[in-house]
């Protein structure tokens, strides 16, 4: 089941067959993750400049830089450096002129499948005027300009223009919405307080959401991206689960049962909130029906149960229980039925998150006294450690396309937020400010 789903996300029929063959061949010791597996053929793409058409000097270059990073992070495209292939990148306008034919021919000869270029300028001579950006896409396979985009907006949104264009490229070639416009919610330390923040997926455009001077922990997005659910401390003494609306900053308490109320997670359809609460003694997992407000207890065990994460179809939950001594991952039906242990390797496995495609569960595993990221398939057959080295890695969260994880780590000393490809390659640090950044949660795609 999961393998079929895994493959269906690949590009086209040829890849589908190639993917199936790859899976049949791959043994338990030889695990690759879908979009980054070696046989996944990325589409070669070159950016032939976002040229300045009036406006400040930085404008075109800024957009081009953001666009290139987005293209690279998409893992759908292989970003090629055109000058190093001997391909000139003059301003070819809308691509209709004679000069553009030369560039297209060079690109095709050098095996560049997609050529992207554009221009950016100010709508009027006034420096506060709106910015205009145009982007065009040439496909060397069909030898035609397949289309373009025109954006307008204030100078403060040029990064968003690049993100939008990048997502259009991903959408054009995969049918997926892309992740360049997604956001990451996280916790940052302010004095002794921990407050909620949201930033763009690339670490830019940070906004503070709470400022109550105590602890706000472990934010999770609602499926519609309008809200965060999180753990807060009322008067420092009681843990509640709160909700905040991003557009308005309006905040209110949704669970205040007494005791520990932590690790909220909304089901993919938004109809249930799973969470852990110790209001009946020890930490157990509960499920709130958000429409009827009926609460159902899912676990009954004298040890600690916590950290529920939904399978993408909403039928199962993975969670943490220390019923065997140390914390381990367990699976159960979303009604609490059929509880079974998933992890057996190591004496500490926690903070599980089910991938959006269903085929992997990422979690924190303790190996050689270090806390690192691992992934395991829901059938327990495949397991892989993604990070190594010193430092405490914590709170993994999947990108909506399932190709990346974001997590916190103390690898560089203080706790900061990092992005990593789902196969453990290409770690990118996202936060550089402050004394402590943790608990990242990646938003759904828009």
């Amino acid at each position, binding site marked *: 089941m999961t393998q079929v789903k895994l493959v269906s996300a690949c590009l086209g029929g040829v890849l589908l067959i190639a993917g199936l063959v790859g899976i049949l061949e791959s043994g338990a010791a030889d695990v690759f993750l879908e979009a980054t597996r070696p046989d996944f053929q990325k589409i070669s793409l070159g950016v032939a400049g976002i040229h300045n058409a009036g406006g400040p000097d930085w404008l075109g270059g800024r957009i081009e830089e953001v666009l290139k990073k987005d293209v690279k992070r998409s893992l759908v495209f292989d970003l090629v450096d055109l000058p190093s292939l001997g391909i000139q990148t003059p301003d070819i306008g809308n691509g209709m002129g004679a000069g553009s034919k030369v560039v297209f021919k060079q690109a095709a000869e050098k095996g560049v499948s997609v050529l992207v270029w554009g221009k950016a300028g100010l709508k009027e001579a006034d420096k506060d005027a709106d910015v205009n950006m145009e982007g065009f896409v040439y496909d060397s396979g069909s030898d035609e300009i397949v289309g373009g985009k025109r954006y307008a907006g204030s100078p403060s949104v040029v990064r968003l223009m690049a993100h939008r264009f990048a997502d259009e490229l991903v959408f054009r070639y995969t049918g997926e919405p892309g992740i360049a416009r997604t956001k990451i919610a996280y916790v940052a330390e302010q004095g002794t307080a921990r407050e909620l923040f949201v930033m763009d997926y690339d670490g830019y455009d940070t906004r*503070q959401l709470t400022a109550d001077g105590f602890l706000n922990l472990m934010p999770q997005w609602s499926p*519609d991206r309008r809200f965060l659910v999180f753990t807060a401390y009322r008067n420092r003494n009681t843990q509640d689960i709160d909700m905040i609306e991003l557009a308005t900053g309006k905040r209110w308490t949704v669970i205040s049962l007494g005791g520990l109320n932590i690790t909220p997670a*909304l089901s993919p359809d938004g109809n249930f909130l799973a969470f852990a609460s*110790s209001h009946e003694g020890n930490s157990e997992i509960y499920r709130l029906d958000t429409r009827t407000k009926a609460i159902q207890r899912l676990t009954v065990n004298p040890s600690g149960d916590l950290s529920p994460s939904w399978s993408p179809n909403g039928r199962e939950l993975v969670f943490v229980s220390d019923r065997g001594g140390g914390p381990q991952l367990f699976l159960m039906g979303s009604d609490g039925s059929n509880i079974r242990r998933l992890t057996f390797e190591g004496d500490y496995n926690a903070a599980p998150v089910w991938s959006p495609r269903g085929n992997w569960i990422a979690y924190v595993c303790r190996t050689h006294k270090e806390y690192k990221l691992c992934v395991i398939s829901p059938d327990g057959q495949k397991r892989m450690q993604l990070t190594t080295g010193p430092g405490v890695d914590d*709170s993994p969260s999947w990108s909506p396309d399932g190709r990346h994880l974001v997590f916190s780590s103390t690898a560089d000393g203080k706790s900061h937020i990092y992005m990593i490809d789902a196969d453990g390659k290409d770690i990118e640090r996202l936060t550089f400010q402050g004394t402590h950044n943790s608990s990242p949660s990646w938003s759904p795609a828009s």
Partner: protein
Amino acid sequence: MNKTFCAGAFVLVMCTALIGMPGCSKKSVQSGGDSQGMAKGGNSDSSRSGVGNFPDTGVQSGGGGLRGLDKNPSEEHVGSGTLMAKADPSSSAERQMEEVRAEQAASFAAGLRDVLFDYDSWTISEDGRQALSRDAEWMKSNSGALVKVEGHCDERGTSAYNLVLGEKRAKAARNYLVELGVGANRLSVVSYGKERPSCNEHAESCYQQNRRGHLALKTGK
């Protein structure tokens, strides 16, 4: 003829889709939790205490606001995404910090001692029992005092599991105080996991200070 009809129908469908699409930048902002949650919570459980109002958070429309590449693209306005409210600089932050300072000063003045724990453990050690015995004596001779037992952890391990571990530590300390004859109604427990460390170095000496049950004297509020 057929072709023209198809093309016309296609344009019509696309137009309808475009009109119907809210677009990323103009995502309509609906009211928050209150009204929607109340309207939806129809059954008898809706008045249950401890559960607040819940908005509909399911995904209403897909599409992501992407309109596809176009050979003659029309201009799209890019707004600042979902408008995000800035944090309200509430007076609550100042008040909380004042109260924390007052609690700390009162606990220090009373000579209340922390109980320290081993790695991964919530068992009270011999040293811990001695510390708690003195704390219990103090509480018996100050019978009006209310104490909050805070469970803390070092930075190793996950935020989430450390909250559970911190609660186990706080409850172990609370239970031992009750065993020693302190009224349970004078003791409350709370876990701060690894979120309020007393020490920030990555070293065992520091980790040991952070693995603690801290007795905070409530300051009358």
